[in-house]
């Protein structure tokens, strides 16, 4: 089996079509590139586009079912990056991200914590972020990996919200948000309202762990104002990392901004560029998040 076949046997990842992105690499190079384990199962549903974004950023990604990981946790040794994609694991029953975190804790907690403590990267997007907080991989104050220190609660307006918002990178430390100042990005969640007790919040600020904050279009703080801050999160927190900056949890979905034409207002941007005689970009700005992870191992 070739490397590519192994990574993605899914119909939506066609290998026969030339990549349209300049970020992709040839297969000869791929040996030196990081390998990503993208978790799936039990209602996780963003695994394909998340894996695809890692591939577009140059990594090799494999989608692994949680039960297969539980059966063979040693396979984690083969990977440098682990991704907890978005979705509705267990339908948010017993609290968003809680049941899948319980499944991990009940079976492979040690292996996951070991992975987290190594010089490796972990990202949790949306429901993945909810899983990471329940697992205690973020914020992990005092490196207390495994201890739940924060919670993503029901949106302040108590409804699922799907819309584009604007993020500001507020962390120097976070590996995943490098080379990003602001980023337009979509959210789609019912429980994204970040809450932690004061001592945790204080340490997040002190340790530069707030990776993304919601801002207004003019980059001023959203100040919990809807719709700029879509869920009422404290301090407009959209994403936090651990103290090392290697583990990121965020509510917005950068993988859904993989192409230029994903962006909410792209037709206007297109019209502007065409009238200026410029060509249209192909890739989306959300890919930078995944590119940063790849570059952590290649640069």
């Amino acid at each position, binding site marked *: 089996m070739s490397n590519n076949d192994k990574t993605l*046997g899914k*119909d*939506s990842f*066609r290998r*026969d*079509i030339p*990549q*349209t992105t300049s970020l992709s690499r040839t297969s000869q190079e791929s040996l030196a590139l990081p390998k990503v384990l993208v978790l*799936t*199962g*039990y*209602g996780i*549903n*963003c695994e394909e*586009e998340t894996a*695809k974004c890692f591939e*577009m950023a140059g990594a090799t990604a494999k989608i692994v*079912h949680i*039960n297969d990981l539980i059966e063979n946790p040693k396979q984690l040794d083969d990977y440098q990056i682990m991704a907890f994609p978005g979705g*509705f694991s*267990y*339908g*948010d*029953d*017993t609290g968003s991200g*809680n*049941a899948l975190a*319980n499944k991990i804790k*009940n*079976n492979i907690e040690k292996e996951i914590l070991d992975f987290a403590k190594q010089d490796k990267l972990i990202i949790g997007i949306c429901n993945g972020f909810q899983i990471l907080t*329940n697992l205690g991989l973020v914020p992990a104050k005092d490196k207390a990996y495994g201890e*739940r*220190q924060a*919670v993503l*609660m*029901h949106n*302040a307006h*108590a409804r*699922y*919200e*799907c819309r584009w918002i604007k993020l500001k990178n507020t962390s120097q430390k976070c590996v995943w948000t490098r080379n990003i100042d602001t980023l337009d990005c979509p959210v*789609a969640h019912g429980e994204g*309202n970040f*809450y932690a007790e004061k001592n945790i919040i204080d340490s997040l600020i002190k340790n530069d762990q707030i990776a993304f904050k919601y801002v207004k279009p003019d980059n001023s703080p959203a100040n919990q104002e809807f719709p700029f801050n879509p869920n*009422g999160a404290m301090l407009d927190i959209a994403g936090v990392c651990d103290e090392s900056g290697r583990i990121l949890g965020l509510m917005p*979905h950068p*993988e*859904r901004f*993989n*192409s*230029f*034409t*994903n962006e*909410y*207002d792209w*037709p*206007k941007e297109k*019209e*502007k560029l065409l*009238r200026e005689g410029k060509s249209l970009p192909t890739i989306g700005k959300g890919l930078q998040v995944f590119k940063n992870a790849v570059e952590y191992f290649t640069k």
Partner: protein
Amino acid sequence: MPFPRFRDIFCAGGLLNVLKNMAHRIEVLTHVNDTRSKVMTNKLKSLGFNVKNSTVLEVYTVNKEFSPEKITKIANLLSNSISQKYKINEPFKNIPFDFALEIGFLPGVTDNIATTARETIEDAFKEKFLGQESVHTSMLIFLEGKLTQEDTEKIGSTLANDLIQRIHIKDKSQYDKENGMDTIVPKVNLKEEISVDLVDLNISEEELLKIGKEGILSKDGTRRGPLALEKDYLYAIKKYFEKLGRSPTDIELESLAQTWSEHCKHTIFAAELDETKDGLYKGYIKKATQEIRKKKGKNDFCVSVFSDNSGAIIFDENYLITDKAETHNSPSALDPFGGSITGIVGVNRDTIGFGQGAKPIINKYGFCTGFPEDKEPIYKDKALKKQALSPRRILDGVVAGVNSGGNQSGIPTPQGFVCFHDGYKGKPLIFVGTVGVIPREINGKSSCEKLAKNGDYIVVIGGRVGQDGIHGATFSSEALSEGSPATAVQIGDPITQKKLSDAIVKEARDMELYTSITDNGAGGLSCSVAEMAKESGGCEVDLDKVPLKYPNLEPWKIWISESQERMTLSIPEEKLERFTDLMTRRGVEATVIGKFTESGHCIVRYKGEKIMDIDMEFLHDGLPEKHLVSIYTKPNHTEPDFEKPENLTETLLEMLARPNIASYEFIPRQYDHIVQGTAVLGPLQGTGRVISPSSVTKPFLETNKGIICSQGINPSYSEIDTYHMAACTIDTAIRNAVATGAPISHMALMDNFCWCSSTEEERLGQLKSAVKACYDYSVAFETPFISGKDSMFNDFKGFDREGNSIKISVPPTLLASSISVIDDITKSISLDPKFPGDLIYIIGETSDELGASEYFAHISAKQKEKFIGNKVPKVDAIKAKTLYEKFNKATQDRLISSALSPSIGGLAVTLAKKAIAGQLGMEIDLSKIPREKTLDREDFLLFSETQSRFVVTIDPNKREEFEKLFKGEKIAHVGQILDTQEFTIKDLNGETIVDTDVKTLEEAYKSTFKNY
């Protein structure tokens, strides 16, 4: 409506009782950011209840012995240590309240959270729940305020649906005395004695017809629920069993009723009608597709039409796209949430069940209800005890159901509509649709082919079978009335289906582990197994192998239950082990229930005994042919006679706020329309977030090829002429897509007919006329139908507040859906104007076509009269097709910067929506608009609903090229986009008749559903 504090619940099929026992009760309280309680308080206040405060707790009832340490661990697993606190087997103290209200599920009703909790507990201790051990959830609400027992009961009935939920109330003193609420285990207790009854058909005709209408007579004297078998069907069955020399068993009769139901066999569309020997389906719809495919020859893009669970067309050299739309009207009328969630996940299975299994990539919806502000009650019974759900409650419920089903399944929902009409008040129309994608070949074989072979195992996967959804298929073939069965209610479990879907479409399919697959929808196993058995030529089923939700379910119920999230597969012997192993690893239950055979018989056994043996031929083709007769008396309405309104600015603002025009942004906002990362153009467009009638999706991240979906629906036109209603509906579905950049050369259609009283000759006449239009316009546009569905009895029979008998029928409704392929999605066009200075053009001529228009409806409401008129819009397909081809050329050449096609509300509403979307002002000169010579009333010109028109904006530099391309067509430059926020329209004499600004327009457009 009094709710007894504590009650036994009797349901058809057995006594379900609510038991107290020694199970553990865990109450979970959220103590920070308790949004749920806040929302509850606000909701109850807004409903007028005297509630000062409410506190909502989650309750888990764990019906299994655990040590104190273990139960504490369980409580920790099920709650959040930061935001929540719990109590085990004791109540919380210090929560202020006057009444405590607990809402839980009735026995046997699917409880998804409980299923997850149980799995978590089993996983934590590596210990299975056995026998009757179980977990249940409920919601406990502490209410503080000046309330009476009666108020609290009313709150209970507002929050709960008594078809599926139980309510338990204690006032403060009782609560304190009894130390909290009771620990209740809602367990299904069915009679252990199971019998299969023979049904004697040698009875009087009256008795025979009663079996058809009300169901088989049980020993206890009750009827089992409608079989919807008409007289000639009953006699055909009687004759068949006379020949066999025996009486049918109950399961045989139930099975025939399912298979022969209008819902499954589409008997009205199949029947000979007047001079049409082939019937409406073969004689018009299918015929149109055949003719178009022949004409298109090499360019035919249809691959699988009308034969599988979905229709399929070519996407590119490697992939097909599938499409299917369904309705879930009757279940949604009884339980809107349950009806719509099972609708959306059900139509997803029509994708998963296409060919060898397609992957769902787009969800679509359409909600037709009564006007949500209509508070006039209607009742199901003469005693006025059973009130039908209000339009608002139905709307809220169906919106929430698709939210839950679609979002949890990880399928984007970028496409949908709402439509309000008084005729939808009794029975709503709830449309759901799914587009899928599948490789054209899988391991070198066509992905469309499926063939269950003699000797293959019959395997069911997914959810378990319970009493839910009994008689769904036959129930939907009847009008809604007091006797409609509560067991027809279904509860969805999207995660069980998601696991199933992933395991099939993403793994088992490409491993070729099965030979055929189909959905368990209407009629349950009785339809799915019997349908697949056609491929091999027979089947033998052991019903006692079917996994059940609870013991002692009668065989006939197991066979026809429509319990959700199940699919049936045929699996060759040598692949069975690999298949079941894969399913086990994916947490999907898979069970062998029998074998496909070539015996020519459908045989069912229960505990070794043969309880059903019917010839396949009789089962599928034994139903007598129907010969229907129709008439159509076209109405002649008086032409409306009213003065042009003096203030057209005000009229425009009022039009924008009408429910059928106003923004329903609250729906797309709560539907994930961007999951899978494939979104291009969605339900909301432009800075001003205006609802778009079409959507664009790029299914593969690597290529720019895309899918454009759109929908059309024009029920009000049926008041004048169903032929033109259908023509306009089709044109709407096509031109909305064309406006977005779709080529009609690669566009297919689907039809969903929702009719009423379809035994009446006049209704059939209306139907025939509409179907004729489908043929005419499909052929003229060369847009083939690839799939369709019909629902023929959308009537409500009940009583008004005086107890007078009423019948509310839906207006004859056709939903047309279009699906098309665009080669380069960067050439798709959004509806919002982009820059000041851009030129506004109108393409297409406007005629005096206001018959049954929204404008006439508006004036009717204002003047308290009923203006309908006769000048319904008509479509000239030949002209329109040429125009659409030119339009597509213009989009290919990037000449158009924004586009929106006028529909309900006409030009004025379209212009206003564009201004709102772009957040840019515009000035319009009505005298420039291409119009029919006799049309000289400004209000008519503004609001006429003439079809086949577009409003576009273009870059001034493209003007020459644009005008050259449209040479010979009726187009005109009518105004420009401004760099201010002003919105003005000049009349035919150059006087300003509309003078407002973008903000005012936006407020009107967004005011109606602001608080939804």
